[in-house]
């Protein structure tokens, strides 16, 4: 293993020593003296008027400090941290509830057990109304959930019309025209991309402390977006963001569900200020299933038009996306992320329409991939069906339609340009590492023995690196909750007087290893050993204003910011070193923990000497200020567009319908890699989540809106025994968008995998005539498909 701190090395993580010894500190681990605990009364019904709410018995219980309902917090207004469209979520239910799990009352007590006891003592009566759960029913407006809106339809996204300013051409007529061609093959499938529960293993938690003497709040929260949370709390509570210090300590997984600012975070902060004592709430797993955002939740029909010899002529999607009962952070914008990659790796006209509708369920928002797994799933499933229809190899049909390397930057019909790519290089490599032809032979041999073995291919392109200024123009800016920002990246690099470096970044990890990766960037460029570089994040008091870790954006947006700050520090250090060595700054080279004159490695100074001089004005050359640090806020010119192709082999048990995932291969291209060990770790986890959607996970509400999958017993995640080891390889097509040449890798595994597994299972069942089975491919569903095909 590389022990030196170089970019591109599989350096062991700086984060790990604390975590493997149980010494990492997550939000719930903090317990200041006299901390009060919170429990919420949550709605047991999906849609109702609240006819009576009596908290008097709860208030009178020993150990109960306060019980709050909507009347107590009405003056704060609805949750500010949401898309300001349609029906806004109140902090606590305002005379009505719209989904199971909606917060009605907040109990604050001396300990968590007493708080829960008091919740049980609150009396509430409901006038229950019919719930709307089914997406087609919701779209029909047969029952309108929010009377004042007159419709359940919040918004409709179209491929050409999502942003009028772009003046895009509607390509739907081109696709329709292609369908009329004599040689056209048209394949159409209706598919469900089911609702999922993110399930970070660390439940969300928030702890707020108010210092009355100084008017300051300190909030620990298990969040992906500390600065946004600070802004939102300040906006909602009428404070200045500088007085709301948010700290995201260790965060035990996020996957998007901690990218929202939640009403509980606002309420806990407000209560701490009201009561003058620390207040903490940690969600239960049941709350995580019903009151933390969900992901996906689409139904739609995908149509591909092509020639008989495999040339794509056009693609259409007509879908409905589930918003839940209210929108939150992005919600309505999630399909837009899918829209930008609707055409995948292929050059063809697209007609794409997604209706966003309310239902009486928990809000949907960003879950690993966010809109992109949905978009790619529809496209790649229908491509597979088309390949089967024309009798062409599914890998070959994809390769035939890829954008070619000399066509980049490739402008798509949605107006955005793919930054760089060599899509066929990934499939070439995949064919090689998996021995694709050999796999097909093995499958065919198994088939001859009567076994149901299948191979699935799935490609993807994703859009990452959210930060281009144009996104803020479209509305991707949290101005309404105190964080006006173009989703820029930020980094502060400081060489301390002792020659060590401190790096503060605007984005914090939920397991992605930022301390290591950012340490490598700074260490590499300054020549300071990695162990002397410490990376800080997730504290709004010390970190430069940042946006957060989501959308595979950190390395592509905050990485370059840190690199640029490092370069400024290096340039200044070169002047100081040159002065100390009586040389010219342009002759200074940094290496091995210090600087020397090019060509004279023995004529050098170490970082301690440079830093010592840097903080003493009398030791500096003329025109150089003292201090040795720089802060950069960085905005990219485009998003980044990672890509790859995955391959799976499965066997289906015809008697039980059980799917066994036998082999899994992936070739991903995320541009340059700073730590390939971490990159592969991201892909492993991403694949497991995509496989989870394909085979196991399903957030189910019954027709009355009862949450049927509120525990991990009812919502099965993949276990170690369900998965094989993964075989990964990479191609490297650097992004021209940023000086690191990086693209982002957090979501690729998930975006590439669900359809790959489903394609494999459908391939296994194809000899029986099965053309599609909706996810999750649990035994009963697969068994039923087999029975129906045989009938």
């Amino acid at each position, binding site marked *: *293993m590389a022990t030196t701190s170089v970019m591109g090395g*599989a350096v*062991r*993580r700086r*984060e*790990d*020593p*604390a*975590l*493997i*010894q*149980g*010494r*990492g*500190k*997550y939000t*719930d681990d903090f*317990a200041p003296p006299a901390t009060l605990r919170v429990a919420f009364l949550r709605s047991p019904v999906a849609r109702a008027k609240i006819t009576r709410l009596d908290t008097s018995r709860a208030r009178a219980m020993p150990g109960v400090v306060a019980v709050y309902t909507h009347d107590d917090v009405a003056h704060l207004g609805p949750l500010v941290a949401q898309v300001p469209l349609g029906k806004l979520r109140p902090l606590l239910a305002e005379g009505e509830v719209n989904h199971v799990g909606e917060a009605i009352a907040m109990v604050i007590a001396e300990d*968590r*057990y007493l708080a829960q006891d008091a919740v049980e003592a609150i009396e509430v009566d409901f006038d229950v109304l019919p719930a709307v759960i089914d997406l087609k029913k919701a779209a029909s407006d047969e029952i309108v959930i929010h009377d004042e809106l007159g419709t359940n339809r919040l918004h409709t996204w179209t491929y050409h019309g999502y942003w009028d300013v772009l003046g895009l051409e509607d390509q739907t007529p081109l696709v329709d025209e292609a369908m009329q061609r004599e040689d056209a093959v048209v394949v159409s499938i209706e598919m469900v991309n089911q609702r999922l529960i993110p*399930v*970070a*293993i*660390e*439940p969300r938690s928030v702890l707020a402390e108010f210092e009355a003497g100084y008017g300051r709040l300190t909030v620990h929260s298990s969040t992906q977006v500390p600065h946004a949370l600070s802004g939102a709390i300040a906006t909602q509570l009428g404070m200045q963001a500088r007085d709301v210090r948010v700290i995201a300590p*260790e965060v*035990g*997984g996020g*996957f998007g569900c901690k990218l929202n600012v939640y009403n509980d975070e606002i309420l806990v902060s407000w209560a701490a200020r009201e009561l003058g004592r620390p207040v903490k709430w940690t969600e*239960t*797993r049941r709350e995580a299933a019903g009151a933390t955002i969900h992901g996906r939740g689409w139904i739609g029909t995908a149509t591909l038009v092509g020639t008989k010899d495999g040339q794509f002529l056009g693609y259409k999607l007509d879908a409905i996306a589930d918003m839940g009962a209210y929108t939150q952070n992005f919600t309505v914008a999630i399909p837009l992320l899918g829209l930008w990659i609707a055409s995948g790796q292929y050059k063809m006209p697209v007609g794409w329409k997604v209706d966003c509708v309310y239902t009486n369920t928990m809000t949907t928002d960003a879950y690993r991939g966010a809109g992109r797994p949905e978009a790619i799933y529809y496209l790649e499933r229908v491509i597979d069906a088309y390949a089967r229809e024309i009798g062409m190899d599914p890998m070959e049909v994809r390769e035939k339609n890829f954008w070619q390397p000399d066509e980049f930057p490739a402008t798509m019909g949605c107006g955005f340009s793919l930054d760089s790519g060599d899509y066929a290089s990934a499939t070439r490599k995949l064919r090689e590492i998996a021995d694709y032809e050999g796999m097909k032979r093995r499958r065919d041999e198994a088939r001859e023995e009567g076994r149901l073995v299948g191979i699935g291919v799935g490609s993807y392109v994703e859009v990452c690196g959210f930060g281009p200024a144009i996104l803020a123009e479209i509305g991707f800016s949290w101005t309404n909750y105190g964080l006006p920002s173009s989703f820029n990246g930020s980094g502060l690099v400081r060489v301390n007087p002792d020659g060590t470096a401190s790096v503060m970044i605007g984005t914090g*990890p*939920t*397991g*992605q*290893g930022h301390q290591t990766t950012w340490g490598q960037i700074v260490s590499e460029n300054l020549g300071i050993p990695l162990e002397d570089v410490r990376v800080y994040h997730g504290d709004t008091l010390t970190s430069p204003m940042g946006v957060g870790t989501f959308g595979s954006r950190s390395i592509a947006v905050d990485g370059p910011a840190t690199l640029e700050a490092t370069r400024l520090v290096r340039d200044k250090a070169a002047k100081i070193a040159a002065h100390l060595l009586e040389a010219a700054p342009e002759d200074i080279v940094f290496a091995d923990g210090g600087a020397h004159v090019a060509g004279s490695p023995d004529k050098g100074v170490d970082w301690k000497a440079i830093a010592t001089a840097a903080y003493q004005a009398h030791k500096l050359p003329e025109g150089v200020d003292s201090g040795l640090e720089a802060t950069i806020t960085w905005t990219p010119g485009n998003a980044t567009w990672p890509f790859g192709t995955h391959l799976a082999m499965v066997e289906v048990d015809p008697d039980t319908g059980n799917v066994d995932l036998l082999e899994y291969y992936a070739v991903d291209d995320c541009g340059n890699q700073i730590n*390939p*060990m*971490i990159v*592969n*770790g991201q892909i*492993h*986890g*991403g*694949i*497991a*989540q995509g496989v989870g959607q394909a085979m196991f996970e399903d957030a189910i509400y019954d027709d009355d809106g009862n949450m049927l999958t509120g*525990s*991990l*017993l009812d919502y099965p*995640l*993949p*276990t*170690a*025994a*369900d*998965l094989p*080891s*993964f075989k990964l390889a990479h191609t490297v097509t650097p992004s021209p968008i940023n000086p690191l040449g990086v693209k982002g890798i957090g979501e690729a*595994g998930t975006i590439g995998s669900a359809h790959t597994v489903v394609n494999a299972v459908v391939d296994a069942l194809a000899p029986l005539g099965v053309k599609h089975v909706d996810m999750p491919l649990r035994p009963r569903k697969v068994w039923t498909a087999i029975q129906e095909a045989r009938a």
Partner: protein
Amino acid sequence: MTVNGQPVTADVEPRTLLVHFLREDLRLTGTHVGCETGYCGACTVHIDGEPVKSCTMFAVQADGASITTIEGLASNGQLHPVQEGFWERHGLQCGYCTPGMIMSSVALLQNNDRPSEEEIRHGIEGNLCRCTGYHNIVRAVEYAAARMRGEEPPTPEWEGGE
């Protein structure tokens, strides 16, 4: 009871869960709570040498028991080989499931010093990880098993190992 070798005496409410007692009374916050239903395994500790999900029992049920938590696994500043394996083979990302996963892996290796990949996967299937896809956790346990047998661990994948 004894916790990490230290005698502990306390009065607790009968309904106090063992995991809450460890975390909140003893401030041993390395043991985590992930689901309260005994399914995720983040709360796994050793009770009298056996792995137990500490959210599934009351503190009073552990009266007189000898408990080891993640904080008690390293000895004299020396990491346990399983801890070392998780670090060396990138067996963790967010680290939240890690203490429970390590405690289960230690128990697995106590009973089987040469587990196959399949045995490792079944041995830890009571512990859920959402970050790693288990791939590198399996490598970490393989590393630890080799170390505990006094052998050289397999070459990591990023150096060309299988």
